[in-house]
C-alpha cells in the first residue's frame, strides 16, 4: 500500500471523523437516533460547491455550509420537540426532504469543483504537496473541533444537553429546558456534518447528490469502532476514540481495496470492510473474556 493511499485514507477518515463526532452527539449524548446526516452531509457539500462555483470565497462558503447543516438539524429537532413527531421519523422526514432541497440548491445533481479555488488550495504552501497538506490541515481542523466540543460539553449548556440524553425526566426536574437542549444538540451535530460535507466536496472534485448515501452507517460504524478500540466514559477520551474510529474505518477500506492478493475481488469490498469492522469489535470483548473482566 502506497504512502499516497495511506494519506488519502487519513484525509477522508479525518473528514468523516467530523461526521462521527456529529453522530456521537446525537446518538450517544442526546440518544436521538438521527438519520438527518444522510441529507445534511450532501447539504454541506451542495451549499459549499454552489457558492464556490458562483464565485464566493471558499471560507465563506464553508461557514455557510456549516450553518446550513445546523439549520437542518434544528428543523429535525423542531419536528420532534414542537410537533411531537417521533425522533427517528422526524429525522427520516428531514433526510427525505433534504434530497429535494439539495437538488434545488445545486440546480442539477452534480456541481464540479475541479478547477475552482478551495480552502485547501488557497492555504497550501508552495513547499508541501497537496496530498500531504490536506490531511495536515484537516488534523488541525478536527483537533480544534474536538477541543471546542470538549470545552462546550463542560459548560452549563453542554452539560444540559448531556443530562437530557441520559435522563430527560431528571434533567427537567433539575430545571433543564430539555426541548432547547435537543434543538441545540441537533443543530451542533448537523453543523459538524455540514462542515464535513463542505470539506469533502472541496477535496473530492465537487458535490454530487448521491454523496450522502450511507453517511449515517459510516458515522455509526466509526463511533462504535472507536468506542470498542478505546473504551472510556470520559468525554475528552470518547471524542478522541470517535476520531480514531473514523480513521481506522477508512484504513480498513484501504486494506480491503488492497486485498486482491488473497483472491478477493472488487465486489467483495463491502463484505471485507464489514468483516474487518467485526474483528475490531470482537477482539476487545474476547480480551475481556480471557482476562475474566467486564469491558469497562
Amino acid at each position, binding site marked *: *500500500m*502506497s*504512502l*499516497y*493511499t*495511506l*494519506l*488519502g485514507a487519513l*484525509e*477522508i477518515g479525518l473528514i*468523516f471523523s467530523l461526521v462521527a463526532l456529529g453522530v456521537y452527539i446525537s446518538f450517544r449524548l442526546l440518544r436521538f437516533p438521527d438519520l438527518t446526516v444522510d441529507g445534511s452531509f450532501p447539504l454541506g457539500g451542495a451549499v459549499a460547491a454552489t457558492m464556490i462555483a458562483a464565485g464566493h470565497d471558499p471560507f465563506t462558503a464553508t461557514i455557510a455550509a456549516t450553518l446550513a447543516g445546523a439549520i437542518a438539524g434544528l428543523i429535525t429537532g423542531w419536528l420532534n420537540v414542537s410537533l411531537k413527531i417521533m425522533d427517528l421519523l422526524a429525522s427520516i422526514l428531514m433526510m427525505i426532504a433534504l*434530497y429535494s432541497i439539495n*437538488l434545488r440548491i445545486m440546480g*442539477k*445533481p*452534480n456541481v*464540479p*469543483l*475541479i478547477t475552482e479555488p478551495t480552502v485547501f488550495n488557497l492555504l497550501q504552501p508552495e513547499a508541501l504537496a497537496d*496530498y500531504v497538506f490536506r490531511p495536515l490541515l484537516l488534523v488541525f481542523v478536527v483537533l480544534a473541533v474536538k477541543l471546542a466540543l470538549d470545552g462546550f460539553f463542560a459548560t452549563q449548556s453542554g452539560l444540559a444537553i448531556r443530562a437530557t440524553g441520559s435522563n430527560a425526566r431528571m434533567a427537567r426536574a433539575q430545571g433543564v429546558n430539555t426541548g432547547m437542549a435537543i434543538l441545540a444538540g441537533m443543530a451542533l451535530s448537523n453543523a459538524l456534518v455540514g462542515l464535513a460535507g463542505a470539506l*469533502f466536496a472541496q*477535496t*473530492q*472534485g*465537487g458535490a*454530487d447528490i*448521491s*454523496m450522502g*448515501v*450511507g453517511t449515517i452507517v*459510516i458515522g455509526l460504524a466509526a463511533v462504535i469502532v472507536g468506542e*470498542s*478500540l*478505546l*473504551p*472510556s466514559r470520559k468525554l475528552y477520551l470518547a471524542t478522541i476514540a470517535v476520531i*480514531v474510529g473514523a480513521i*481506522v474505518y*477508512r*484504513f480498513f*477500506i*484501504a*486494506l480491503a*481495496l*488492497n*486485498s*486482491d*492478493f488473497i483472491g478477493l475481488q*472488487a*465486489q467483495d*469490498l*463491502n463484505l471485507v470492510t464489514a468483516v*474487518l469492522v467485526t*474483528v475490531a469489535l470482537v*477482539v*476487545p470483548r474476547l*480480551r*475481556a473474556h480471557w482476562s475474566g473482566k467486564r*469491558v*469497562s
Partner: protein
Amino acid sequence: MSFPLSRKVLFGALALAFATAMPAYAQQKSVAITAIVEHPALDSVRDGVKEALAAAGYEDGKNLKWQYQSAQGNTGTAAQIARKFVGDKADVIVAIATPSAQAVAAATKDIPLVFSAVTDPVVAKLVPSMQPSGTNVTGVSDALELGKQVELIKRVVPAAKRVGIVYNPGEANSVVVVEQLRELLPKHGLSLVEAAAPRSVDVGSAARSLIGKADVFYTSTDNNVVSAYEALVKVGMDAKIPLVAADTDSVARGAVAAYGMDYKALGVQTGEIVVRILKGEKPGAIASETSNKLSLQVNPAAAQKQGITLAEDLVKSAAKVVQ
C-alpha cells in the same frame, strides 16, 4: 480501559496495510479502472476496455497489470479508490461515470485519466471542451445525439404529440438529456411531459402518472429507469403507450425500438484511447470523443402489445429484430 491490546489491533491493521504493498514490475504496463457502481451497462464498458487492450496485445498477468475497483455506490469509497490508483502510480486510470471521474480528476493532475460513459464531460469540468485538453484528461462521452432519437420517436409513433419521460432528477446524465429534450422537442412539433423517479421503486408509479398525458414514452439511460424497466413496460402495455429506449439492451426487455449506445463498443473505443496513451501519446493531445457505434433494434411483438404496428421499412432497417 483496554488500551494495550486495542493498540496492538490498531498497529496490526496498519502493519498489515503496509505488508500488502505489491512489488511493481517495471516492464509491465498498469491500467487501473474504477466505476461508481456495478451495473450491466457500466460493466460492459469495463469489459470493452479489457477487450481493446487484449486486441492491442496487452494481456492481464503478462505485460499488463489490470486492476478494477467499484465504489459500490459510495462517493467516499470512490475517493479512496482514486487515491489508491494514484498511489499505485498506474500508467493509465480509466474512470467510468461522472462521480468516479471527478474523484480521479481531483486526485491527480499528472497520471493520464481516461473517462468513459460520462454524458457531459464539459459540464462535469473534466475537460474544458471536447478538443484536446492539454491536461491529463481525455475520454469518451456516452451522449446521444438527441436529434436522431426524436427522429426515431416520430418513425415509431408518427401520430405522437406528447412524449413522456420518467427519470431520476438526482442523476446528472439524465438531467442533461431532459433539459436538451425540453428545448429540442418543440422544434419538431412535440411536447415533453416529465415524471420524476428518485428511486427505482418509484418508476412504476411515475409512469402511471403520465397515463393520459403522454402518447409515447422515451427512456434515457437513466440508471433507475433501466434497472426497473419491467415496471415501465407493464404501464406501457396496460395503457397502450409504446416505449422508445435509448439503450439497445432495453429492447429485449420490452421496449418497441431503440437507436442506442452499445456500451461494449463504447468500452472498446475507450480502450483504444488507453492503448494510444500506453504507446506514448499524451492524453492532453487526444480529443475527447463521443460514441461512434449506434445500432437500431426493434421488437415488433412488444409493439403489438403496446398498441402499435411498426412500419415495415423501420423493421427492415434495424440491425437486430428481437422476437
